[in-house]
């Protein structure tokens, strides 16, 4: 584990970006698979490919924006943390954040409910939405705090997360390849 410098090198920045981009791309690809059927219906293959290119490009932009936000968050982290601890913590924050957003989307699409109301209905058996929001807020906070705490306290946990992030980065790198192909497609379509 790298415990030396408190600043990310280029490789670590790229890895962090790939970690941030991963869940966003997974979600986009799942949604595209849901929709490309009706988009393609009545359109040529070029239309379906064009649609995929647009949404991947938007996801790339969103990944960059989120990455920027995560880096800003990194400025708040104590300089006493090692780069690995920083990398794991920020990666986990981004992943948990994306996961909650995905959960919110899934609840909306499958259950046709806003997350707080669904939480009240199912977890609290119809109790007040305000109570649901409060408890959901606690749950969300805990879901961020716990992984960061473990990343700082447990070297084993940290190493395991780094290993997972390494593997996910490879997959995420492939998504980036599709993103750049998407940008080329957009340029061709719009010239």
């Amino acid at each position, binding site marked *: 584990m790298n415990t030396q410098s408190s600043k990310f090198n280029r490789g670590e920045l790229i890895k962090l970006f790939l970690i941030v981009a991963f*869940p*966003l791309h997974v*979600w*986009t690809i799942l*949604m*595209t698979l849901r*929709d490309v059927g009706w*988009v393609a219906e*009545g*359109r*040529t293959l070029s*239309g379906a490919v*064009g*649609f995929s290119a*647009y*949404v991947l490009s*938007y*996801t790339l*932009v*969103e990944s960059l*924006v*989120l990455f920027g936000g995560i880096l800003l968050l990194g400025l708040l982290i104590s300089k006493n943390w090692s780069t690995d601890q920083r990398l794991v913590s920020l990666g986990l924050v981004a992943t948990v*954040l*994306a996961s909650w*957003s*995905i959960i919110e*989307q*899934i609840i*909306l*699409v499958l259950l*046709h409910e806003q997350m707080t109301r669904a939480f009240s209905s199912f977890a609290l058996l119809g109790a007040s939405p305000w109570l649901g929001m409060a408890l959901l807020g606690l749950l969300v906070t805990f879901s961020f705090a716990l992984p960061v705490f473990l990343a700082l306290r447990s070297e084993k946990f940290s190493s395991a997360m780094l290993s997972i992030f390494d593997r996910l980065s490879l997959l995420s790198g492939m998504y980036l390849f599709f993103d750049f192909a998407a940008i080329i497609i*957009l340029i061709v*379509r*719009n*010239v």
Partner: protein
Amino acid sequence: MTNNISRRDFLKLTGAMYLASSMPSVMVKPQRAAGSDLPNILVVVFDAFSARNIELYGYDRPTTPNLSRLASRATVYHNHYAGGNYTFPGTSSLLTGTYPFTHRGFNPRVGIAPFFEQNNLFTAFDQYYRLSYTHNSVAFTLLTQLKQSMDKLKARQDLFLGGDLVSDILFANDEDLASVSWRQAMVKTGRKGTYSLFLAHLYRAYKQNLIKKYTGLYPRGIPNIRDDNYFLLEDAIDWSLEQVTSLPQPFLGYFHYLPPHDPYFTRHDFIDHFKGDGYRSIEKPEHIFTNHRGYQDQENERRWYDEFILLVDAEFGRMFDQLEQTGVLDNTIVVFTSDHGEMFERGITKHYNESLHMPIIQVPLLIFEPGQTSRRDVYSPTSNADLMPTLLQMTGQPVPEWVEGEVLPTYHAGEEDPQRSVFAAEAKSFERQYGEINPGSFMIVKDGYKLTHYTGWEQLNGGGPLTELYDIENDPEEMDELSSSQKGIAGDLLNKLKDKVEEGNQKSLDYR
């Protein structure tokens, strides 16, 4: 006479030239050729406006007081039909003077037959300054295809309340797909979810902030397209009025506004105007193309639609009055019509449907001529395909031989022809610009009868085509289907319809 000028005079001249070149262009109206006595032409289209919901045409609700007022100086066509039940074929017929099986504009993804890119209403008036605008993305796709035929096609988003940032600016050349993908990715609406996990929230906040000052004016919601592009009809009318007072003359303006197309978000002064008025439409049996909307749901939607029509009527009245006050009307032919209708019966709602029932295919047409002071009424069947040849006739220009529409009654030398045939078609699933159309819905109106022929649709369950015949002169509500009891008439009309469709199919091979 000497040709020499002094240095002082030369400097004066240079200064004057500089000053002249920096003056606003509106003060220098380039005069176009062909004589200054040609009237201007203003074609005003309100999308999805059914003649069946207009009091001028006998609707029991007073939805159009302004139109009724203005009709006293117009030619009113009472038996007028759109080319199709959807924007693309309907507008294509209006702009080409042909029927859908000829212009092949069934589907915006495929487009109109290439022949009509250089042969349409705009090219027919090439000595005019031609300007068009539409809120409607489908109509915009068509106008974009015809863009080379006109002097200016105003971008849709110019009259929206804010844009979607992407298709407006970055991807304007691929606006249709860019806006569909943007909507799927970023627009939080209904239960579809968004592709974006974070930016969608920011985008929604941006849009909500943009429209919040209008929520008092439009408590039901701001009129919009695809839940994202918000607009005010008032802004579009204001812009149109600015244009017609400053355009080079003669001009041809084609302005295609979205209302009363859904969502039926009328302005606060018209909300609940018809609530509790006791109006009930005739309850009709569900049709094979039903969307399974219940009667009461349809009545509720109909009321909102009718209240939206009140806004359309008020704004057209305002537009017309302003045209008169500014003197533009003195030399402008004004056409008021729609691209297709809207339906709230038989389980079918709106117009996204295969059917060609009267509410969905019968549209208003009023023509206001400069100096006209009395009303004329025409009851013989007419089509939006007739508009182009009529305008050419009115301005003394030849009608191209490929035009299928006819010069409208009162504008040609002869009498009304009640035995004339008028056609319409819908085939939005059809993906080719040539060849036999399948699946499709086809209509012929002749001799007071209306026959529709549906073929290839899933709902027919492989049971072969469906033919329906109605005596629309005596049964305008299409309650008694006559194809079995009036086989002779049905057979004759069906043959004429098939011949016309086949004629279009043959022409399409040349027009591709």
